[in-house]
């Protein structure tokens, strides 16, 4: 028998008490891991909006919040903006939403996350890369077509559609020619069709919702953005992908802070639980500790044993909590596809390292005092303990 095997064995002398302590800590670990996976997933999605090929600047009508779903800018600006210094390419996009999704009936509808319809983006097929669509599984629609669409991967899963299927939009059947995945949950949760087709369907001829601008390789994104606003004062305003990502990241950082606060709370509650468990253990085993001292065990070995037992408890709680978090998040996202379509949980190693660190710290903090107490026991008093 090794000292390590003794340390691993001892916590299970009182299975009920140890199990309860493990459950208490595992709940904290579960919350830390689950929150980390969800916020990490949202962060990844935000980062993907800054993809290399995609537009860096989005131009909207001055005074608009950019979230409108109809055309508000004259599409002549799409060509005009190419004259602004530093602009490499532009693409007008029209955004609309539609709730009818049945394959044959225009009246069938499906409940959607947030109660909104399918987001449909009208864009020229040769400009798809500016919207973050680098490649299409299948083929992209042709600009002249009036019955072809491509569908985001998440939307396709949600509607159970694939290439070759038809989808009913605005009372008209469209053939899905391809699927795409950008990594941006908003884009992947929508459909794209030729700009002119959507303009016709929504009576927005000659209008776009916004214009995507790709800057030249050596240009400064902020300068180009400012030049556009200066060139078209009171007509156009701009947002950069980086600033949008920053805004989202700010929101996520609040969640991150909350996650850390929960971690600290978990450490505190867990440590109190572990201290209680380990003090009970030391009380119950006082005579045994006396015997260990009598047979020559050093104080630091006794300290190491009790501290080790405490850490064993919390590391088991780490494994249990992590497994429950992973299974729980996956099950939740599978059971609620509308949420699952938006959030792709992150499995970044730092989430698990953080949970491991919390478990380890709880083990050390929770075990330190009882271990010190045990190591300082007088052998004769410990042996007399009833």
């Amino acid at each position: 028998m090794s000292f390590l095997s003794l340390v691993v064995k001892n916590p299970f002398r009182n299975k009920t008490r140890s199990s309860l302590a493990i459950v208490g800590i595992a709940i904290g670990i579960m919350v830390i891991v689950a929150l980390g996976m969800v916020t990490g997933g949202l962060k990844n999605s935000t980062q993907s909006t800054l993809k290399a090929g995609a537009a860096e600047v989005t131009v909207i009508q001055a005074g608009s919040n950019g979230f409108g779903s109809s055309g508000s800018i004259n599409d002549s600006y799409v060509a005009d903006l190419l004259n602004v210094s530093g602009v490499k390419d532009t693409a007008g996009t029209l955004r609309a939403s539609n709730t009818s999704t049945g394959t044959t009936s225009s009246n069938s509808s499906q409940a959607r996350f947030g109660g909104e319809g399918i987001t449909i983006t009208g864009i020229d097929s040769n400009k798809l890369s500016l919207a973050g669509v680098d490649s299409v599984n299948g083929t992209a629609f042709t600009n002249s077509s009036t019955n072809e669409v491509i569908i985001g991967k998440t939307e396709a899963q949600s509607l159970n559609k694939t290439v070759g299927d038809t989808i009913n939009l605005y009372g008209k059947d469209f053939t899905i020619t391809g699927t795409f995945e950008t990594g941006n949950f908003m884009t992947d949760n929508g459909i794209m069709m030729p700009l002119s087709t959507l303009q016709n369907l929504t009576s927005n001829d000659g209008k776009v919702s916004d214009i995507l601008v790709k800057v030249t390789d050596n240009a400064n994104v902020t300068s180009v953005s400012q030049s556009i606003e200066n060139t078209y004062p009171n007509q156009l305003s701009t947002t950069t992908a980086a600033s949008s990502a920053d805004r989202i990241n700010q929101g996520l950082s609040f969640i991150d802070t909350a996650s850390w606060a929960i971690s600290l709370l978990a450490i505190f509650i867990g440590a109190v639980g572990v201290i209680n468990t380990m003090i009970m253990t030391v009380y119950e085993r006082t005579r045994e500790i006396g015997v260990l001292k009598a047979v020559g065990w050093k104080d630091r070995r006794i300290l190491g044993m009790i501290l080790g037992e405490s850490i064993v408890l919390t590391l088991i709680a780490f494994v249990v909590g992590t497994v429950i978090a992973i299974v729980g998040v996956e099950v939740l996202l599978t059971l609620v596809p509308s949420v699952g379509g938006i959030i792709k949980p992150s499995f970044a190693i730092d989430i698990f390292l953080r949970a491991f660190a919390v478990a380890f710290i709880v083990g050390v903090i929770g075990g330190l005092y009882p271990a010190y107490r045990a190591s300082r026991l007088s052998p004769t008093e410990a042996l007399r303990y009833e």
Partner: protein
Amino acid sequence: MNKQEPIIEIKGLKKSYDNGKIKALNGMDLKVKKGEFISIMGPSGSGKSTLLNMIGALDTADEGYIQVADIDLMKTKNLNEFRSKEIGFVFQMHNLIPNLTVLENVQIPMFETKASSNEMNERALELLKSVNMEDKINQKPTKLSGGERQRVAIARALVNHPSIILADEPTGALDSKTGEVILNLLKDLHSHENVTLVMVTHEPYVGNMAERIVTVLDGKCQIDTNVM
């Protein structure tokens, strides 16, 4: 060390508790030769267990001189190492660890030695054979009888080749027949392992099994009798 030289030498040892109100040892003098088997007898509260704790370095004296196995216990700081190397304890209650097997219980004192896992196994098995417990090495103490538990405790006391075995009422929790078996076992191991055996008891028939009986009264050695 010469066999005639004392392995335990105590002069004027004093120990009091409760701010000096209880004088457990009051100028104790005692010499024990290497390889001797002595019984320390006396009424309850006479100081015999305190004396045993002093010899085993489980407690420290207030004043006086105590040297055990050439180590001055009044000056030595590393008493754990001393206990690990020189002393084997047998308690009235076996004090085995309930969740460990018989074999693992015997190995417990060896954690402070540099013995490998194989050496620990070999030594523990050898001793469990010598106390006739080799067929129960994988049993937990809760499945053993009182006598069997005490046999395991004796094996545990001997595992680090100590020079002295300190037995505090080793038969106190056993019936007389089992007690006699345990005493004979202790006596056999004392001669076979060549260890000094110091046994505290208040039962005369147990004390009479020793070579020498020391009677303690009021914290002092009052009568010192050679039985054989």
